């Protein structure tokens, strides 16, 4: 087997080796069981609660959880807007970069507090170091926020009748300090030792061997990139993200950064099994997710390794595969691998330009974001999957004539209505947004010629990708799109807001209502949710919802491009 394929297998192996023990650790954190890190973190957390004026032992119901989450997000929104529109004169700006315009600051703020990290700016020239560090703060705490609300849903799934689901602030602080911080520390140290910059000095100026002057951007990159990868954030320090050789200098850092994308999303699935003491349920969910992931990964890798047929037709050698927009130190396989990891989770960092990928890989990355729950984002990925479980339970309940129950709680009309609304929201946002943009473009292609970098079907894909990425809170892009315009900044900003908060509110409401219902012990009449039959059922629900909603749009984009190029 060649070294490139072996490289991507070892990455997944590394993820699994670490994700299962990490899942157990996260389970302990949310269960308030003691861990060996308590000695360090108990005092630190105490400072957080003291300064915050928070009683971490106060139990909250699901509405209080949501209210706390939304309030703190409003605070972040305001602070972020203030910093981004005033960076130019604030400290830590050695390169003299400008402040952001209002619409760009709105887009960037929404993008980072919603854990999306869509970037309509380029880090080297669009942010001061203060701006970067502010965005890094959102990378930590928006991920912590996702984990905290996911923990509340885990609590709601326990075998008891309860109105309260723990304390939001406590879950939030514990997620940030005990999970995200130590992991970021380790990753940042590995990066900095491998040559990723970590300095507050501005650009370096050197003379090349041929005597030209070259400016080299630097900054506190290593600290930033670590949490970017771990928190399914994805917003790069540099414009081309982890394709930039400073941000991701070699194959080892690529393995570490790539594995970091999956680590917490997969660990959360195992944390669920630990908290509920239902390991089999975890493995069922994990298997469904992994099946979906592999169905996207394999075609993408094959297509990229085989290269671009249009280049083959020119008669040159494509031993390395399709190399436009890719880096030699990673190769085509590890680039397609990263592209799949980053889109099935809501990470959105890249180590190769998705816009230049073959139509098949373009389609699998789009599908990963359209489905958005094959592992999914930190915390919220599980919430998306939870919706599909509820739908799966209901449909299979109807099929076999049993009362739809999930973990001993009856699913009724109210829960189903919320689940359906949330399941339909994602296609609604993507398709309406893309239709609107296409309509505007078609009406005035000359005035809007700056939008698209590519003609034909691929140009349509660029717009489809942008809205898909926004609605999936992913943040990667077909970056040829000229997206720093008021239309794209505001439209995708609004989509990101809806796509972040409604899919949090919906599942939390369902889980909160189910938690208050009476627990019905398992009997012969119970539909078992930790079997492979049920797993396949959920997979079918996901497939049907995604295929039915998105197939027409994909046909106009990557599918048409694939067939027209044959």
């Amino acid at each position, binding site marked *: 087997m060649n070294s490139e394929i072996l490289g991507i297998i070892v990455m997944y192996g590394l993820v699994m080796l670490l994700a299962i023990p990490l899942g157990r650790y996260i389970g302990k954190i949310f269960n308030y069981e003691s861990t060996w890190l308590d000695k360090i973190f108990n005092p630190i957390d105490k400072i957080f609660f003291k300064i915050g004026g928070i009683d971490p032992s106060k139990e909250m119901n699901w509405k209080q959880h949501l209210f706390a989450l939304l309030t703190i997000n409003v605070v972040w929104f305001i602070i972020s807007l203030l910093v981004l529109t005033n960076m130019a004169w604030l400290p830590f700006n050695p390169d003299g970069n400008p402040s952001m315009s209002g619409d760009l600051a709105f887009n960037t703020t929404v993008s980072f507090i919603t854990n999306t990290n869509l970037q309509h700016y380029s880090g080297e020239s669009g942010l001061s170091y203060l701006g970067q560090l502010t965005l890094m703060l959102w990378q930590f705490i928006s991920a912590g926020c996702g984990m905290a609300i996911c923990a509340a849903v885990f609590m709601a799934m326990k075998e008891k009748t309860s109105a309260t689901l723990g304390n939001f602030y406590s879950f939030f602080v514990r997620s940030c300090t005990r999970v995200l911080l130590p992991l970021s520390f380790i990753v940042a140290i590995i990066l900095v030792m491998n040559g990723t910059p970590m300095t507050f000095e501005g650009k*370096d100026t050197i003379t090349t061997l041929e005597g030209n002057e070259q400016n080299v951007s630097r900054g506190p990159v290593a600290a930033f990139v670590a949490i970017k990868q771990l928190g399914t954030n994805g917003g790069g320090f540099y414009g081309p993200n982890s394709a930039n050789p400073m941000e991701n200098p070699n194959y080892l850092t690529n393995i570490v950064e790539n594995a970091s994308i999956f680590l917490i999303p997969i660990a959360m699935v195992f944390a669920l099994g630990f908290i509920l003491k239902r390991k089999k349920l975890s493995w069922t969910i994990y298997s469904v997710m992994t099946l979906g992931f592999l169905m996207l990964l394999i075609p993408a890798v094959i297509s990229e390794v085989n290269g671009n047929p249009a280049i083959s037709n020119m008669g040159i050698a494509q031993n390395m595969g399709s190399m436009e927009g890719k880096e*030699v130190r990673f190769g085509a396989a590890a680039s397609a691998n990263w592209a799949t990891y980053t889109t099935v989770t809501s990470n959105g960092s890249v180590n190769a330009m998705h816009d230049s990928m073959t139509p098949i890989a373009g389609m699998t990355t789009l599908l990963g974001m359209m489905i958005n729950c094959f592992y999914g984002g930190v915390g919220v990925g599980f919430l998306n999957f939870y919706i599909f479980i509820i739908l799966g339970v209901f449909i299979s309940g109807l099929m076999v004539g049993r009362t739809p129950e999930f973990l001993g709680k009856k699913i009724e009309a109210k829960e189903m209505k919320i689940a359906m609304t949330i399941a339909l929201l994602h296609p609604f946002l993507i398709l309406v947004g893309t239709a609107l943009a296409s309509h505007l473009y078609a009406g005035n292609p000359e005035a809007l010629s700056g939008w698209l*970098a590519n003609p034909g079907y691929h140009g349509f894909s660029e717009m489809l990708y942008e809205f898909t990425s926004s609605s999936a809170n992913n943040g990667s892009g077909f970056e040829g799109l000229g997206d720093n315009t008021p239309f794209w900044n505001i439209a995708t900003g609004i989509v990101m807001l809806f796509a972040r908060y409604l899919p949090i509110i919906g599942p939390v409401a369902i889980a909160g209502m189910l938690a208050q219902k009476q627990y019905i012990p398992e009997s012969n009449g119970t539909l078992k949710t930790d079997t492979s039959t049920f797993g396949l059922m959920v997979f079918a629900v996901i497939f049907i919802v995604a295929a039915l909603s998105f197939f027409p749009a994909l046909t106009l984009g990557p599918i048409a491009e694939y067939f027209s190029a044959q």
Partner: protein
Amino acid sequence: MSIFANYITPLKNNKYLVMKENIIPAIRLTVFCAVFFSGIYTLSILGIAQLAPNQGKGEIVTVNGKNHHINVAQKFTENKYFWSRPSAVDYNAAGSGGSNKGPNNPEYLKEVETRIEAFLYKNPSVKRSEIPSELVTASGSGLDPNISIIGAKVQIERIANSRNLSEEKIAEVIKNNTERPLFGMFGPAKVNVLRLNIALDKLN
């Protein structure tokens, strides 16, 4: 959204759901998070960076007293040097980026054809089928410091002629600077163009 309307009325009556209960803790907590994550965490990594290569200011090699960033591609156009991959941003390391051209974009394919012809013109003994695609396609960052070993070998004759050196000497430079896959097993083998060119300059 009418289904959510049922929940709005009860919200008003719940004393824990008033803004005041959450807004002050939210602000105080956020401020301390900023101190802790943007401040203490960042400074700790900055401290550790003092032990890293070039104290975290980017990995450097020094040639004749001049610094070069080893991880960043430089522009090479002279015949006596190995050439880096094409760059969509003209090797601007303060504004990196890719071309973002789609695989079937006719303009893009024309550009690749132009690069192939230019390469064949400067390397007349190389056959078209021997040109590896990475030498005529732009990298993701525009700063890719590497090319494949084949990508280096097809440039040997041009460099040897230009420097009046034997082809074996140039081949030896490639051999001495070949970077094996990680642990000999993972990822592609490659060469760093800047390292090759520094080694070439030492030959003369």
